């Protein structure tokens, strides 16, 4: 559960960094920005796992992180672009451009809620 929590929180931070990078048109036109997400997920997990003092990202921390992340994304993108930009980045990153935005958004919402629930009810462990 600890690694899952790290990956989950890493996903939120990765998505937020990708959204900020997406605002730079020069970068957006040249880079597959969605790949920032797995890179940040890996980096966050690797750094935390390599820390000498174990760090647990609790359910409460994760919930606040998710809320702040969604709110920040809303402030950056606005409601209309929020439904398009994250989904567009994800489908470009996974090279499944045939997927519609609504499908990706649905999977994203279900995944985020299910993940948060799993972290919330899961045992906080250092393993």
């Amino acid at each position, binding site marked *: 559960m600890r690694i899952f929590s790290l990956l989950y929180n890493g996903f939120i931070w990765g998505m937020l960094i990708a959204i900020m990078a997406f605002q730079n048109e020069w970068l957006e036109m040249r880079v597959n920005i969605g790949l920032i997400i797995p890179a940040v997920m*890996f980096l966050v997990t690797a750094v935390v796992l*390599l820390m000498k003092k174990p760090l647990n990202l609790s359910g409460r921390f994760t919930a606040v992180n998710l809320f702040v992340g969604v709110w920040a994304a809303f402030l950056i993108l606005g409601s209309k672009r929020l439904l398009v930009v994250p989904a567009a980045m994800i489908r470009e990153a996974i090279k*499944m*451009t045939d997927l519609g935005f609504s499908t990706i958004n649905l999977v994203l919402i279900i995944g985020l809620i299910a993940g948060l629930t799993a972290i919330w009810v899961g045992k906080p462990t250092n393993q």
Partner: protein
Amino acid sequence: MKKVLSLLLMLVFVMAVLAGCNSKTTSTSTTPADANAAAEFKLGDLSDSKPLVVNNEKKEVQYLAQVNGKYFTESTRHGVVFKDGSNGEKAVLRGFANQNDFYNALIEIGAKPGNNISLDDMKLAEETVQGSKLNVFVTWEGLGKEIPFSDILKATENRPMDVRFGGNLENATNLKTGCILCLDSCAVGITSNAAFKANEITTTKQVTITGNGDVLPQDGTKVAVIFRLAE
């Protein structure tokens, strides 16, 4: 040791997810894109297996493409780009035929390439693309008519489109961007818009262009782009 193992496992997991997603599988989505992907798609003379049609009589090239809904809200300087090119996801329309075949198709209908813009010109926004003039139209299933390409775009400054056969085969082949139609004059795109100087949209940042969501069908819909040699 445990930490290293955990790290390795996690890396394998992330890579497996990415690799799994990269392999094209049938999905259960209900978007037009998925409906199109399910069976052989046909639009006039165009189909999935024939995404490029040359009509010498009409002096036109028909090109199969797909709406990228991302650019209903985001700005771009790319009109049509081949899906497997490095800019495949950066255009209003994602194309299904590669830039080399498209170039040859234009040569076949008698179009003459301009080949007058260099990659260095792209930094200056001074040169304008030359070459045979092309009238570009778009149509899709249910529309029942051809509409000018400019109708599917929204620009903060309206300049009449002047699409030219820029050529640029060497740059297009070397850089593999997949650019078919650029919205400003370009050293790489096979065709580009002489209404704007070389790379003007990005360099000067004075004009932004997006897809027109009020005109275009929804994300994923396949459309035919018709490049007709002007008289």
